[in-house]
């Protein structure tokens, strides 16, 4: 592919302050995080179709009704899909204007294994990262279990990730 010289006109600038919006969130995550404090994963159960959602969902579109029952589910599950992040060097990419290596989020050359996990007893998938495994070991159908923080404090980071069940 060759680079061509493009005709350009001058440009004028403007911004859209996307960070100034205030959104409304339901209290569902509060319930989930209450459970996290006891190393428990709580899901919402639609009594219409029997589907269990983790993280919780408050409306089931299949049955077109509100979901209000709660169940505790296992913290073991199956990898439904995965992808690997790009191994990046310092200054290579920016996330919302920040360099992930510089910020200490990623080590240089590290490839994060990002997985969608279907916890046993649920019908949904939970997004997290796979720990204690090499990228080439990741596969769909892999059995994993949640890795909890030693002292959970009711935050999403209480689940550090998932690791293979040996």
């Amino acid at each position, binding site marked *: 592919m060759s680079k061509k010289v493009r005709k350009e006109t001058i440009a*004028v600038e*403007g911004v*859209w302050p*996307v960070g*100034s*919006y*205030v*959104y*409304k*969130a*339901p209290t569902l995550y509060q319930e989930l995080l209450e459970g996290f404090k006891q190393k428990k994963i709580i899901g919402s159960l639609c009594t219409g179709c029997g589907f269990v959602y983790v993280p919780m969902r*408050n*409306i*089931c*579109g*299949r049955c*077109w009704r*509100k979901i209000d029952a709660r169940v505790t589910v296992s913290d073991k599950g199956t990898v439904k899909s995965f992808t690997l992040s790009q191994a990046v060097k310092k200054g290579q990419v920016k996330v919302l204007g920040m360099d992930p290596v510089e910020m200490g989020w990623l080590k240089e050359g590290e490839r994060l294994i990002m997985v969608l996990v279907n916890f046993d007893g649920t019908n949904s998938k939970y997004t997290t990262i796979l720990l204690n495994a090499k990228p080439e070991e990741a596969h769909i159908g892999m059995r994993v279990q949640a890795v909890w923080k030693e002292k959970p404090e009711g935050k999403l980071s209480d689940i550090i990730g998932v690791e293979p069940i040996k």
Partner: protein
Amino acid sequence: MMREKVAIIGYAQSYHQANMPMTREDMVFEVAKEAAKMAGIEREDIDTVINATNDYYEGRTISELFLVMPIGAYLKDYTKVEMDGANAVFYGMLKILSGTHDIALIVANTQGSTFNPHQISVYTLDPTFDRQIGVLNDISAAAIQARVYMNKYGISEEEAAIVSVKNLGNAAKNPHAHRRMPGISLEEVLSSKLYCDPIRELTMSPISDGAAAVVLASEKKARELSDCPVWIKGVGSCQDSYIRDRKLYKLEGLEAAAKKAYQMAGIKNPFAELDAAEVSERYAHEELMIYEALGFCEEGRGGTLIDSCATFNDGQLPVNPSGGALSADPITATGLIRIVEATMQIRGEAGAHQIPGAWRVLAHGQTGICAQQNIVFILGGEE
């Protein structure tokens, strides 16, 4: 001419308010579900779902993405109209007239509390010029329009303020309205906070959270499902030129839209033939301009018409018995709320703000600065 008739068989609207203690999802779920319940249908009966929102107001690109499930669109024909909700009804009607769908669910929603909609009006301007100059927004544009219009026809600020008195007073009887002010006086309106001369807090619409939904049906289905279908007799829509190249003292686009709608509905003298009208007046003076464009009075006589009290609830042609957009303005839902209110009037379900014997009602929706895009519906009961 329409090949078939299309009817509204169910409707619902939220209790519009400044900051609704409800997520966007719950809000649309409730109105959609209520409208379907009223129409006596289940999710399985719906053929197509049309949503009206705007990514800028919602603060999410693909704002309808997460609304698929709450809105009842799971595995349904689904699309989004990024304009006033009345246009979504128009699209739903087109689908039914095409003969491909029988029942359409239309939902429109905006939560103004997410982000100031007046700021967003700036983003609709020409980015290469007007947005750079930085003086124009929907309030300042409306203020200039108000001045031009009022000076040209000798209309006083009081006459425009009467519109606010009328609409906010009417809203007191409407439990769904956001700004309800029983016994509001002219002085109160004229002494409210000045934004852009002559636009004041009470002569411009409030920023509201709200949603509305209607169920449309083909003639066959409507007769099957409903005892009291409300028919769409006529519709007209028109976009006007960009604000730099159009007349500021008159709503030419609305005039053209109304002409089409009247022609379709066979209306020759709208003032005599209509029983009520629900219009989207974002600013008080705009309602006077709307009177003229809709042919309720001659050009420049909007002030005289409001002075005569003919558009009050006990007048000859009540306009905005619900309180109109001045009482609640959840942007993309506003036009759809007008259709819902018109339907309520025809079905005799408007409660305290019912106009007795309303059988042919006009509903109007608008999009854009100084009402650049207008859509007019003529709704009617069984002839």
